[in-house]
């Protein structure tokens, strides 16, 4: 019972991001989303000062700390944060 429950939970945890990503009904603003991704990747930022959308899921972000990053999604659906 507990195993199946845990398996369900893990499945939910694993599948939720992708499924939700497809749903695309987020309540999160783009700067906040970008800041979360930059932080998840362990990059310093402080706060997103501005951003420029270069293409779909491709942003050039300027942080309050002065750092600039390119945040984009690769063809194999990986989020990449590159410092500029």
């Amino acid at each position: 019972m507990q195993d199946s429950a845990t398996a369900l939970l893990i499945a939910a945890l694993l599948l939720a991001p992708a499924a939700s990503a497809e749903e695309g009904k987020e309540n999160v603003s783009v700067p906040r989303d970008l800041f979360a991704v930059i932080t998840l990747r362990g990059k310093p930022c402080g706060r997103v000062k501005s951003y420029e959308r270069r293409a779909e899921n491709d942003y050039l972000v300027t942080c309050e700390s002065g750092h600039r990053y390119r945040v984009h999604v690769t063809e194999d659906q990986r989020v990449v944060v590159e410092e500029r």
Partner: protein
Amino acid sequence: MKPEGAALVTGAGRGRGLAIVMALVLSLTLACGEDGPRAGPRAEPSPPEEATGGASAAPDGPDSTPPDLAPEAAEPPAPVAPPDELVKAPVPKTPAPAEPKPATPETSGPGEAGSESGAGTASAAPALSLEELEQELRKTRALGFLTRLALKNDIDDLLDDVRAFHDNGDGQLEDLRERFDLLVLKVMSLLQDDDPGLARRIAGAREAIWRLLEDPMEFAKLST
């Protein structure tokens, strides 16, 4: 003489009269003083009592059930006469609203979360809430698209490394546990502001999830 005597008499009379008046005033003030400070303020406060009753009910009243509490709070002041009753009246009223508070889902929430990680005693609760949890994870609006995808990348990477550990003995279990904990913390920190309930549930299920990951048999089942 008479005028003087009369004057003296009248003076003495005035003096006595003043003394009597003073004595009466003093006795009255003393007499009122015993009841006055308490009964007076209490008697006046009958409105104040209503105010306090209203104030005590106000915090709960407007939030919960203003129409119910308002009449109840208004009733106690009705027996204005005995101040003790007025004091007692609001007291039972406050416990009454306090009763629903113990049933706060917040306290039960962590309990469930803690029990999830614990023994199977609460197996029924998590089993019931898992579908909800899955739905919440799918539908939570606390994560943006890029954040979800980045988290999925991290989870996939961790699962790949756990699989490599079980299959080939690559890496160390302690390192995988650290990464797992860090990942859970990241998810929780992302959820805690906009979806604290979900963050709590994930925190409660952390140990159970890790037990599945570290067990080769369970992980194999999960992978298939």
